[in-house]
């Protein structure tokens, strides 16, 4: 249905509009470790998969243990050839315990979105 409707709407709304690829707010589609999930130790990186491309230079991620200890992270990067995936390299492997990840990203169309989720390392 999307293939039919999108060209229809673009045609109806006049050719004077700047034609753009369909951008959208970058919401979190899924993550590894998963949102609310429990995974086996050790965890050395976290991957965030968004619904749209993310500009990592204008995005931030914060990881902390349930005890409040901040986990150092490296510079955010996109996966090769996939701007919708953000790779968070951790300064140290995560051991057993609970962790919270807070993210704020800027999508390729400059919309800013944010969120927080929890996961557990067993």
């Amino acid at each position, binding site marked *: 249905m999307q293939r039919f409707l999108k060209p229809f709407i673009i045609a109806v709304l006049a050719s004077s*509009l700047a034609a753009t690829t369909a951008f959208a707010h970058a919401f979190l*589609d899924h993550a590894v470790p998963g*949102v609310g999930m429990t995974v086996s130790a050790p965890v050395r990186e976290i991957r965030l998969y968004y619904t749209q491309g993310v500009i990592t230079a204008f995005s931030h991620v914060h990881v902390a243990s349930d005890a409040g200890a901040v986990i150092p992270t490296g510079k955010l990067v996109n996966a090769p050839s996939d701007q919708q995936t953000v790779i968070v390299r951790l300064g140290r492997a995560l051991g057993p315990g609970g962790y919270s990840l807070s993210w704020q990203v800027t999508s390729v169309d400059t919309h800013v979105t944010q969120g927080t989720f929890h996961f557990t390392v067993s």
Partner: protein
Amino acid sequence: MMSHKSHKTSLACAGAFAAAAILAGIGPASAHTIIGDRIFPATLAISDPGTNDELTLPTFTWTNNADGSVSYSWNGFYGKRITADLEVQIFSSFLHQVNPRLNGWTGITTDVVDQIMVSNEHEFVVSLGVAELWGATGTPGIAPQFTTISPQLFIGKGFGDAPWDWARPIAVTGAIAYNVPTVAAVFNNNVLVTQNPTSLFYGFTLQYSLVYMNGYVQEVPEILRNLIPTFEGNFTTPVSNIGPSIPGAIPGTHETTGVVGPGLYYVAHDYQLGIYGAFPINRGSGKHPGVFANVDFYLDDLFPNTLGKPIFGGPESSAFDPWHAFK
């Protein structure tokens, strides 16, 4: 004195006028709204509580009315943000009715909605609006020849700030409007044709957002993570200028009427699909359940640099935040 046949016809027309006024006065689906981490979808029982740039084409309704008629309508809606908090809307419907047969346009409704309170942190929004169903803008015999004005209040709250994970995907929205026809009664050769009561329209949605759950609480299987199931309802209570009860008249003109039922919304990247099963709450609300459905395009995502952004200012709300006002 009106004959029985002309009386029934007049009442049928009055029913169509009333239905159109109520439907258009509030309108079917309006903008989806993003407040903080929460997407409030463009719901079908009532409008969502905030502002955005949106095209809903179409909203389809199928209703089995109390007078025995069956109505099908297709609605087109366009909403444009002037600023991040101020939106103007225009919409109209084409009605196809059987028993009695009617085909035509129900008139043009415009609406101005202003977000007056927004808390992104607490996923809370309050908006005020004024809608006008403009008289004589539709098909004669279907659309009213008089204008109806409807001041409105919308409210929405997501519970992402709840301390229990099971509650965080929940959101509720509410709407209330007071419909005031500008003509109290319509006469034909000094014979009363219709009496146009003022009425209170109010409704709610209760949402359990799997979209929210997947992004912020607990990963959801891929097949479910775009869904927002709801339970919704809307009601109309005549308030004044109701007129006397007429034996054998169409049920529902002197009582609260309404529909309730389950809804389901599929939220994609730049559009939304929705469907809602509307079950009458009493005999006056309809003979059988009906169905509402919509296709809603998120213009802020489809055209972020042109149609999809406010005319003046940036996309962030500057409305009053009650949580931070007194800090």
